[in-house]
C-alpha cells in the first residue's frame, strides 16, 4: 500500500485516502476546437497511453483531504514516488531528466514548445 503526499495541502497518507487518476499530461484536443480534431487525435486522447516499466507520470486526487488534483512521478516497478507537483505544473527538471522513452520525447517536445511561446 502506497504512501502518497499531496503537494497542495501537505497531507500524507495511505493510498486509500487518495484517488488515482491515470496518466498525467494528457492533452484534450477538443478544448481548442472539436471540429478540427482528427479521429486519430481523438483516439490518442481517449485511449493511447504511455505505459512505461519504470518512471511514470500520473494524476492523483487528495480524495480524503483538500480534494485537489495533483501530479506525481512514480516508478512503476519499485513503486517509489520521485516527486509530487501541481496539476498545472511540469515535474521538477531533475525528475524530467530521468524520464525515458515516450516520456522523454514528450517532455523534450513540451519544453521546446513552451520555450518558443
Amino acid at each position: 500500500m502506497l504512501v502518497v503526499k499531496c503537494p497542495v495541502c501537505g497531507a500524507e497518507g495511505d493510498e486509500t485516502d487518495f484517488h488515482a487518476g491515470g496518466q498525467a499530461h494528457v492533452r484534450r484536443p477538443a478544448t481548442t476546437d472539436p471540429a478540427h480534431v482528427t479521429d486519430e487525435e481523438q483516439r490518442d486522447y481517449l485511449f493511447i497511453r504511455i505505459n512505461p516499466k519504470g518512471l511514470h507520470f500520473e494524476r492523483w486526487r487528495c480524495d480524503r483531504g483538500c480534494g485537489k488534483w495533483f501530479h506525481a512521478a512514480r516508478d512503476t516497478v519499485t513503486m517509489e514516488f520521485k516527486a509530487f507537483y501541481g496539476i498545472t505544473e511540469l515535474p521538477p527538471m531533475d525528475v524530467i531528466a530521468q524520464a525515458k522513452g515516450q516520456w522523454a520525447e514528450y517532455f523534450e517536445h513540451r519544453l521546446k514548445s513552451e520555450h518558443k511561446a
Partner: protein
Amino acid sequence: MSKPYRLGSGGRLVDRTKKVSFTFDGKSVSGFQGDTVASAVLASGQRVFGRSFKYHRPRGLVGLGSEEMNALVGVGLGARHEPNLRATQVEIFNGMAAVSQNRWPSLNWDVGAINNQLSRFFPGGFYYKTFMWPQSFWKHVYEPFIRRAAGLGKAPEGRDPDSYEQIHVHCDVLVIGGGIAGLAAAEAAAANGAKVVIADENPQLGGLADISGGAIDSQSLVDWTAAKGAKLYAAENVHVLNRTTVVGHWHHNFVMLFERVADHDPALLSQGVPRHRLWKVRAHQVILATGSIERPIAFANNDRPGVMLASAARGMVERYGVAPGSNGVVFTNNDDAYQTAIVLKHAGVGVRVADSRARAEGALPSKAREMGIPVDTGSVISAVNTTWGGLNITGVKIASYRKGQGRVIKETKAEADFVAMSGGWNPALHLWCHNGGKIRFDDALQAFRPDKHHDHITAIGAANGHFGLHQILEEAYHAGSKLSGHGNLHPVPTAQQAEERPLEPIWFAPATGKYNEGNKHFIDYQNDVTAADLELAQREGYESVEHTKRYTTFGMATDQGKTSNINGLGVISEASGKTIPEVGITTFRPPYTPFSFGSVAGVLTKDLFLPIRRTAIYQWHVDHGAVFEPVGQWRRAYTYPKAGETNHQSIDREILGVRNKVGLLDASTLGKIEIKGPDAAEFLDRMYTNMFSTLKIGKCRYGLMMNELGFLTDDGVTVRLSDDHFLMHTTSGGADRISAWLEEWLQTEWTHYKVFVTNVTENWSQFAIAGPRARDVLKKLDPSFDLSNEALPHMSFVEGKLGAYPVRVYRISFSGELSYEVATPSSYGLGLWKDIVAAGAEFGLEPYGTEALHVLRAEKGYIVVGDETDGTTTPIDVGLEGLVSKKKADFLGKRSLEQSFLKGPNRKQLVGLLTEDPNDVLPDGAYAVRHVKDKPPMEMIGQVTSSYRSPTLGRSIAMALIENGRNRMGETISFPLPGGKVVRAKITDTVFYDKEGAKLNV
C-alpha cells in the same frame, strides 16, 4: 508399543503443578500448562500426528514452531473448528478438542495409505499424463476421487461466532522477531527515543536463545533475553506483541501483523475479546530479526514418525521436559546439532551421532565425545527401519560416506527409535523478499542471504546469515541505534560462545539400493515430493525451478517450503549440473504463515460489511411496511404493500393513486449540487450536452451529461437560482460521482473558470408530490408563495415556506402529472413528510415507491440512465438529439459523437413497443431477432430496456433499443422467449400516455 516420554524433570515452559487435559482424536490426553499439542501428545507416547497429502504416509513431529509441516491438527468443534494448525504452535487448554487430519477411518489405520503401496505409479506430475479417457471421466470419476483424497483438514460448520478486528499503527522502527537480535535492536532503538514495535510469533520472547549455547555478559541466554524482554515491556516508547506473526511486507514499509489474541484461552473469547487482530503497521524502518530455520537431510524414509529436526529434539527436552524417544541418532553435517546430542545425554536419553563430514573437531563435537557420546564421522543414515505401516522406528542403518558418494558401500545396523537431523540453517528471509528484496547465495552457509532492498528494511542476526553470538549482538545494537533516527551507538555487551566449524552440504544421502528405485528421500514432506520427483521433472524438461515446483508441487504445501526449499534446490542443482544460484529460487509470497480470513474482514461483516445509506424518512418507511431496494448504497422504498397485497397489487395501486389522485415519493437520494461563480453558466454549457447559459433565473431545465466517449452518464434538472448561481440535480447514484466529475474538470482542464461547486445532497430531504390533487395538498400546508399555474408554471422554481418549514419547491415532473418536488433541510424532513401525509389524506394521498415511479415515467417515455442506456448509448440513440446543442463550440463528448461508429447507420435506437397480445409483458432484456428460427443461433437486432404492465393503460408497454428503430415505426418484430414462445410487438414512439403533455400544465 508407544510409551510415555515425559521426563522426570525439566521443561522451562511447562508448569508441572497445573495439569491440563484435552482430547486428541477423541482420546483424552493430559499435559501441563505451557504445553503445546505437539509436546503434550508426544509426551503421551503418541508419535503419529497426521497423514501426508498424496501417499497418506503416517507422519510425526518434525519442527518446533511455525516451520512444522507434518503435525497439522484441527482444533475446536462445529462452527468453532479450525483446520490445518501446526501442533507445535497450538497451546493447550482444558477441554480443547484436537483432531488429526487426512486419514480415514483412523490415524493408525488409514485406507488412503494404499496410495503409498502404489506410489511407484504416482511420480511427480503423473496426473498430467493420464486420466484423459474417456473424456467425461475427468469431471465425474477421476477428479472427485482426487479431490476427496486431497485437501487435509475439514472446514468448520456454520457461521463463525467469534469477532475479529484491525488497527493501524505507525512507528519509527518495527522489529520483527523477539530473539536475541530482535531484543538487542529494539533496546538500542528505544534507548535512542524511537517509537518501537516489536513482534514475535511465540507466546514468549527469546526466540531460540533457550536452546542455543553461550552467554552474554556472563548471564545465561535465557536470563538475558528475559531481562531484555521485561525492559521492553516496561518502556514507554515500545509496544511489544507476542503471539503475533508478521505475515507480510508491502510497498512503502506497510507491514501486516497477525495477532492470535484469544486462541489460547477460551475464557477470553467468551468475554468478547477479538479472536484475532490484524495490525497494519506503517514503519519508517523495518528490522528483520526473524532468525533462521533448520533444514532436514534427504535420506531414505526420512519422513518416518520419530525423525525430527535436531533443534526440535532438544527443544522438546528443554522447553517441555519431553524426550523425543528413548534412544536416538543425531544425523548432522554441522557442529550445532551436537548441542542436541549433549542435551539428550544430560536428560538420560540414549544418543549417538552420525556426522556426514570427514572430521568433526569443533568444541561441541569434542565435548560430546568427552561425555561418552559415540560419534561416527564420515557417516550417514542409509535406511530407517520401522514396524508395519511405518508407524514406529525400530532402528536405522548407518553407512560410511565420502563427499559426492552416491552408493552405499558398507552399512551397519543401529538401535534407535528416533532420529534428530540437521542439514544446517537457512536464514528466514521470506519477509525480505515479499516486496522485492534481492538475495544472494552464501557458500559457507550453503543458503541464501539478504542482499539489496529498495525499501527501508534491514536484516540482522541469523536472518542475515550471521550465527556468531558476538556478531549478532554487534549487528543488532548498531542497526537499532542507527535506524532509530538519532543514532547514538548503544554499548554492545560481550558474548561467550563455543566456536563452530563450517558445515559441509549434503543434499542427498546414499541409501540401501538406489534412491530412484523405491527408496523415498523426502524433500517436501507434506506434499510427498521426493528427490526422485525433482530429478524426474528436470529430466522431462521442466528445468526452470518454477516449472519443477509447479510440476511436482514442491514448496507448495502449507509450510510454503520453509524446510524443503534449499534441499530441493540442492537436488535440482545436482540433477541439472547447475549451481544453486544458477537454479535460482522460487519467489516468496505473503503470508509468512497462513492467517485467518476473519482477521482480514475484521469488523466489516454483517451490517458493517458495506455502508447502507438512509434518508431522514427511512424509519418511517420501515414503520409503514415498505419493501426496500438497494440503489447504490442507498436503501429506497420500492413499494408499500398493505395487508394482503402482493407487491404487484401494491405497485398498481400506487400508480393509479398518482394518476387519479396524488402520491408522495421520498426523492431525497437525488443528487443536489450548488454551482456558483461568474463562469458558472459557461461551465455548465461545457458539462451538459444542451445549453444552460440561456436559462432564465427561477427556471428549471432538464440536462444530459455525456462522458468524453460520447455516451450518456447522467441526467437531471438544473435550476438557475441567480445570474451566477445554479443548483444541479443528478441521479441518485450520481451525486458523489458527478460532483467529483465537475471538480475534476474545473481543476484539471478549465482552470481559468471562476466557479465553486459544493455537493449539498445530504442537506436536503426532497419529496415529489405528484398527481392531479398535488396543488390542493400543498395549499393545505399554508404555503408562503403563489402556487397557481401562472405564478409557478411547469419547470419553474420558488423558495419559501410551507407552514413553518423552509422549502425549495421545483415544479418538475417525472410522472407526467402535475408535480412538485419539495425540498426542506434534512432535520425537518420527517416532520414535513408527516405533515404532507396528514394534509394529503383527504385527497387520497398515499406514498409511492421506486417501482411505481419507474412505471409512471415509462408510461410517459422518460428514460432512466442505466435502464434505457447501458454505457454505450448516445443521446441520439435515445432520441434526445434535440438536447444535443448544435450551437455550442464544445462540450464533453461532443467530438466523440463524430466518430464513424457513433454516427454510423444501424445503431440501436430507442423506441416504444406494444405487444400484439396486450397481456404479454416482455421480459426485461429480451432480444428481438431479425428472423425467427426453430433453434439458435438467431441474429439479434435489439433488446428491451424497460417493460411493465401499465395499470393506467390496462396493457403492457415497453421501451427497447432496436437497430435502426426510428425508421421502423409500425413494424412488428419478434422476441423468442425461453420455452419457445415468440412474442410479437409493434414498434411505436416511446410516449404511451398523455402524448401532448396536457396534464403537466394544469
